[in-house]
């Protein structure tokens, strides 16, 4: 699908609103002040998303959730070291305590990811004064290339674009980097833009 400059700006704004809400959710969860350092949003061709990842073998912890009757999805990836820091913050442990994921920390990460993704989606829905259905979240810890390719093939049948937000959350003197991929179908994004144009 082709988007004009205004439509692209609207989408970028929606992604920023979502990313800021995700930061607020992290703040509530960790009981820390969280600032989102100027999130960078870009629209990327489906085929290039994975090719632009510098080290596809780097380990990440990821949460993927289907939205809009499963037509689209939101994927958030944290580098593994950041995900472990978040788990420590969430479980009120000294930073650096959790060195590897076990059942408990995986579950904590899954829960946190779920809340953060839902905060992203509901902020977009609230802004547009609409409702967006969210599916059960799925998490995994694996190579970033594999995680991203599995998420993008879900929409690659019908869509050719992915909206990527590069977010850096500053929490307790740590900068936690996250990438938020909004993977949408053309009809979904058209619906969002229609709603935005009526605001």
């Amino acid at each position, binding site marked *: 699908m082709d988007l004009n400059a205004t439509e692209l700006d609207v989408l970028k704004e929606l992604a920023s609103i979502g990313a800021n809400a995700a930061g607020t959710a992290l703040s509530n969860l960790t009981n820390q002040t969280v600032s989102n350092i100027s999130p960078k949003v870009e629209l990327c061709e489906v*085929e290039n998303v*994975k*090719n632009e*990842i510098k080290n*596809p*073998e780097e*380990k990440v912890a990821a949460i*993927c959730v*289907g939205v809009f009757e*499963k037509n689209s999805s939101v994927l958030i990836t944290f580098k593994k070291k950041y995900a472990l820091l978040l788990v420590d913050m969430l479980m009120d442990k000294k930073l650096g305590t959790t060195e590897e994921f076990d059942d408990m920390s995986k579950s904590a990460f899954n829960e946190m990811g779920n809340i953060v993704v839902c905060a992203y989606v509901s902020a977009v829905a609230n802004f547009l004064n609409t409702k967006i259905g969210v*599916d*059960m979240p*799925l998490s*995994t810890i*694996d*190579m*970033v*290339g*594999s*995680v*991203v*390719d*599995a*998420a*993008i*093939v*879900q*929409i*690659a*049948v019908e869509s050719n674009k992915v909206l990527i937000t590069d977010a850096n959350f500053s929490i307790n003197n740590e900068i936690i980097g996250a990438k938020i991929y909004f993977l949408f179908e053309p009809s979904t994004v058209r619906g969002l833009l229609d709603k935005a144009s009526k605001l």
Partner: protein
Amino acid sequence: MTEIDVKMASITVSNAPDILIARGVGSCMIVMAYDKGQKIGGMLHAMLPTKGPTDNNSAKYVDSGFDLLVSELKKKGVTNVKKLEIRIAGAANMFPGVTLNERVQIGARNIDSIRAKLTEVGLPLSGEDVGGTTGRSISFFLNEGRVSVTKSI
């Protein structure tokens, strides 16, 4: 010897002693074809099972990508297609748990697609490491036709 990264939705054909590599593969299907006599090999990094009528990039799809891989190998000098050794890897289900939606089972559909294609063209599989729930990095050594798969877990 050169290590060549084979990007998503693309095909690379080369000869010994090069190494063709697909890093961080999830539900994508990696198809490797090797001419042992001439030490020529090619790797397809396909995303989806079948090409639709309006799609243009053949390397994005398993079925059309395989045909393109074979024709690229012929251009490189492979004469007897029937002697090609075919190996496949990848096609994992990275987010297990949801089985209702066929879209998230692209990995399984990619496996079905390559098997159907190989039956159609009458080529046997020489080796495979497909499915499961973990990502893979796949290296294809063109000096001997060997394939090495590493997983993160």
